[in-house]
């Protein structure tokens, strides 16, 4: 009886300690551990927010089997930078929203953050952001990739993104004719 009671208390204490912690530990598919501010994680990721609220956060590292260590490092890096960033002057001055589009231009640090990534890292990060329900990070990474496509010919796009052309010559000619005008503009 005594022992059981002691165990219960220990469990209680551990739970309290866990709740008090202001970071969560995330574990990548290849077993690396990363710590991230609980507040930032909950604010930036709907999936992590749900896990934190539902108590399914593991103190020894919450398994994120779908995300590799490099992508997870970038996710955590983004969360930490986001937590520390104060809205830039540019953002404040452009806060009058003239556009109906819900997208807000990336801030300077967000732009730099995605600019330094390799293609591989960028695509992995997009997937991680999508998986974790990180709306803003998804927005910023998708924006970056779309910027890489703008004004490019199909050939250039295939080259940049390493995509195989799976059309037959005839099919290609047909589509080109149908969309001829789109190739004269810009």
């Amino acid at each position, binding site marked *: 009886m005594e022992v059981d009671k002691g165990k219960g208390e220990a469990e209680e204490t551990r739970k309290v300690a866990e709740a008090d912690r202001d970071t969560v530990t995330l574990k990548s598919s290849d077993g690396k551990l990363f710590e991230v501010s609980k507040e930032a994680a909950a604010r930036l990721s709907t999936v992590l927010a749900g896990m934190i609220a539902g108590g399914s956060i593991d103190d020894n590292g919450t398994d994120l089997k779908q995300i590799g260590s490099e992508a997870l490092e970038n996710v955590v890096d983004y969360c930490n930078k986001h937590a520390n960033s104060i809205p830039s002057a540019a953002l404040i001055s*452009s806060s*009058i*929203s*003239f*556009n*109906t*589009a819900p*997208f807000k*231009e990336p801030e300077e640090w967000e732009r730099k953050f995605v600019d330094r990534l*390799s*293609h*591989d890292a*960028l*695509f992995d990060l*997009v*997937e991680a952001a*999508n998986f974790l329900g990180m709306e803003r990070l*998804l927005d910023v990474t*998708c*924006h970056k*990739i*779309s*910027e*890489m*496509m*703008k*004004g*490019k*010919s*199909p050939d250039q*796009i*295939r*080259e*940049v*993104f*390493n*995509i*195989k*052309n*799976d*059309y037959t010559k005839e099919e*290609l000619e047909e*589509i*080109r004719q149908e*969309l001829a*005008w*789109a*190739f004269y*503009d*810009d």
Partner: protein
Amino acid sequence: MVGTRRYPTTSSLLSIPLCSPCLSEDGGVGTQWMMEAAGGCIRDLCDGVLADILARLPSASVLRCRVVCKSWRRVTTHRSFLAAHAARRPREMILRPQFYPKAVSTRQRLLSFHPCCDGFVFERYSLDGLLVRMQHSGLFAICNPTTRQWTNLPALTPEPCCSAGSGCGFYLHRSSGEYRLLCDGIERNEAAGSNPELRRYYYIIAASTARPRRLARAPSNPSLLYEAPVAYRGVLHWLYYQPEARRTGKMLAFDTEAETFRHMSQPIDRDTKRNLFELDGCLGVAAVKSLTSLDIWVLEDYKMERWELRHRIDNLPMPRLYYEREVSVSRVISVGSDAILIGSPGCYVARMYDLKEKKVIYRDFELGEATPTFLVFTESLVRHELFDSCPRSPDLEPIDF
């Protein structure tokens, strides 16, 4: 080609983005991505993420992406993608060129254009990426400048009308998913014998029905031109340039689902110059008291028809006027939830005013050598059946994109 009427559209459509000039959607933001081709595994992205990326591209880029590979074509032709892409397009305002032909520098974020030769033919309505213009009495051309599809709606003349008005409004009839045009026209009542009686009616013209449907008697006093109505909650509203609205001092409302008319209250007496616009999810009325002052009313409670004076703007700076001519009527449209563009159909500069900060953002917002139509346009690649179901009339002049 001499004598060909040229229709301003997409690359040739003269419009300005309804946003601050420093933010533009394909605005040459430093895309200096010079990475070598190796490695990128964009093929592994799921369709949802790929669609999210491609929906951010300008329309012409999306069309070019269809050529890249089969899966990109599949993603970019999907209904949900087309809707998401259209929802992301910026709002633009269509401009009417003053001189012919003159390209406007793209640096000003104005697209180059081919103006129409006929000064009396111009875009009447803009809805969901579609533009409607009257070609001649009773014949309306409809086009999607983004997909470059065009046709005409069934003609109102010579049957059933002997003469037709220039259109009242264009709307989506939700339950049928059909785009329809409301227009007035005059019928000759032959039964009256040697002295035929002329009667004016409203008609509904739909692409799927060859003959326009007669709706109700229309005011017999000829109007100048029905103003383009403001759509709100599936109802079209006319405030000023509409014979009944003028006579009764009420606002005329047309329910686009039931296709019935009614009158609604409006905030000010009928002599004040005013125009209707949508402001931050409400109907708004700008009452122009003078060139330097105006009141903004908002229909706070639509059902109870309760108007509220929301903003009183005084001491607006005088705009630089077109040929220094006095601007007789000023008009207002919103450019977001908190800003309005104040201009005049005859003036190629406009003012932009921030309602929240209560200050002028641009005193002389340059529109190039063009005047504003106050028609708001957003690009859309959504395919509409009406272009397939409605054959072109031999009378329809070709639309040259």
